[in-house]
């Protein structure tokens, strides 16, 4: 099936969503996502961040779709023409979405442990406006402990359901979920019962905001003062491939490795995550790839290859490469 996204044509198999097709093209045209997670089934469709404009439904029916559609839930049709960043309407609509997501968000980034690797922060910077028009009191909850390793700040939650789906699909027998409805909806467990499954720690990694954070890392250090390295260890429960966040010789935090869409590559077990906080527990492979615009790469060296590729692109753009070809 041929689909055109922002003027770039791509061939995709049947059943692909617009979002997946856009991701195949590359990060420049891929819409941002807050709730969709390719590793979790039935995720997506809640946050509306990934909306796109369909200017031509298909070759058979070339009418445009009447309103912006959620690209994570819309499958492509043959000959579909989609606009994402090329449509001013979508940019404006996405700004509205960000404003909605931030209505109840406390904006306590200076306190929040997620700051620096928070998707909502990135989204706000890219698409949001500096002011809010909301005049009422934000909903407020006291932070609660879910077990002894996870802290839940319901204030920061954007109700993306990722953690609920992770608990359902990765662990057996989920004990937490969403209670109440609409504006009063909140993530909760049965009477603050702990999440005790071996893989329950992954809800921290899938959380796009700082609602679920690691208590063993709580307020230890800001992420941009730590150095992420890819490391592995022999683990009976999981693959043992993880990302270890170092400060000097000290292991401050262990998380799963994340790909370029900020999604976990392989889920790791709680024992790797919480109990192995010594450098000798891990075999270090090398520094993790961090985007150079990320605050985490502040004061860290970059991958040499990445720099080379960057320099080549720059040279090509300036036309240096064509000098030799001139007659």
């Amino acid at each position, binding site marked *: 099936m041929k689909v055109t996204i922002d003027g770039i044509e791509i061939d995709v198999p049947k059943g692909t969503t617009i979002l997946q097709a856009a991701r195949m093209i590359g990060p420049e045209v891929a819409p941002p996502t807050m709730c969709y997670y390719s590793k979790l089934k039935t995720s997506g469709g809640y946050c509306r961040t990934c909306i796109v404009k369909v200017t031509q439904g298909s070759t058979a029916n070339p009418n445009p779709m009447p309103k912006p559609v959620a690209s994570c839930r819309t499958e492509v049709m043959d000959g579909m023409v989609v606009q994402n960043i090329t449509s001013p309407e979508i940019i404006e609509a996405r700004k509205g979405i960000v404003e909605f997501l931030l209505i109840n968000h406390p904006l306590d980034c*200076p306190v929040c442990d997620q700051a620096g690797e928070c998707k909502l922060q990135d989204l706000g910077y890219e698409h949001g406006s500096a002011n809010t028009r909301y005049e009422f009191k934000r909903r*407020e909850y006291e932070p609660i402990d879910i077990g002894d390793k996870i802290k839940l700040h319901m204030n920061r939650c954007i109700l993306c359901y990722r953690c609920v789906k992770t608990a359902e699909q990765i662990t057996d027998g989920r004990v937490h979920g969403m209670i109440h409805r609409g504006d009063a909806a*909140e993530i909760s467990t049965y009477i603050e019962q702990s999440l005790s499954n071996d893989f329950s720690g992954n809800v921290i990694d899938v959380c796009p905001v700082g609602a679920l954070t690691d208590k063993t890392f709580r307020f230890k250090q800001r992420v*941009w003062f730590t150095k992420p390295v890819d490391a592995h260890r022999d683990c009976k429960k999981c693959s043992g491939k993880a990302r270890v966040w170092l400060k000097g010789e000290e292991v401050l935090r262990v998380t799963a490795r994340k790909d370029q869409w900020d999604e976990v590559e392989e889920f790791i077990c709680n024992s790797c995550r919480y109990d192995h906080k010594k450098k000798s527990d891990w075999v270090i492979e090398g520094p993790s790839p961090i985007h150079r615009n990320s605050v985490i790469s*502040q004061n860290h060296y970059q991958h040499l290859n990445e720099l080379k590729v960057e320099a080549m692109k720059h040279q090509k753009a300036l036309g240096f490469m064509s000098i030799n070809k001139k007659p």
Partner: protein
Amino acid sequence: MQLTNRSKQVSFKEMTVAEKIYFPAIVKGMAVTFSHLFKKRPTIMYPEQKREYAAVYRGQHVLKRDDNGAERCTSCGMCAVACPAEAITMESGERKKGEEHLYREEKYAKTYEINMLRCIFCGLCEEACPKEAIFLTDRIVDAEYERDTFIYGKDKLVEKMDKRIDVTKRQTPEVLAFKKIPGLKHNELYTGKLEKGKH
């Protein structure tokens, strides 16, 4: 060859009699000296008398408290990441129940150190601070005998309740206007417990 046009020809001509007795030259010099007695004295008798500083003078830092006396700093690390000299280090702590009058937010700086030998007084920390906690003031960092005494901890940086430091002069009209917007959590004082799950 002449490199510049500023070279002077040296002359070895004989001095006149008036020049030889030196006395007129001494009188002339003394007259200049004497005339200075009646001129305005440019010396400032520091430390009894102090020169007025510019409103934006960048001297020793202060960590501000809010109107209730709670520390404003939440140890967010923005100053440390902005610092070009890497002079700032900090460690965060979690506020316990009953400490609300001491610390403004749930996280606070357990230790906060500025190495005054590394600091270049550029004021980027002040600019980066999202909580209006750190300001540079018109105070001068004291001279010390030991290098390690230049590492200023919270005991020296946090303002004393009986000696509050006024920084309103340093704040731009935009900042002062922002501080008057009602409803912003930044401008609110801590009032007590939160209502659970209610608007």
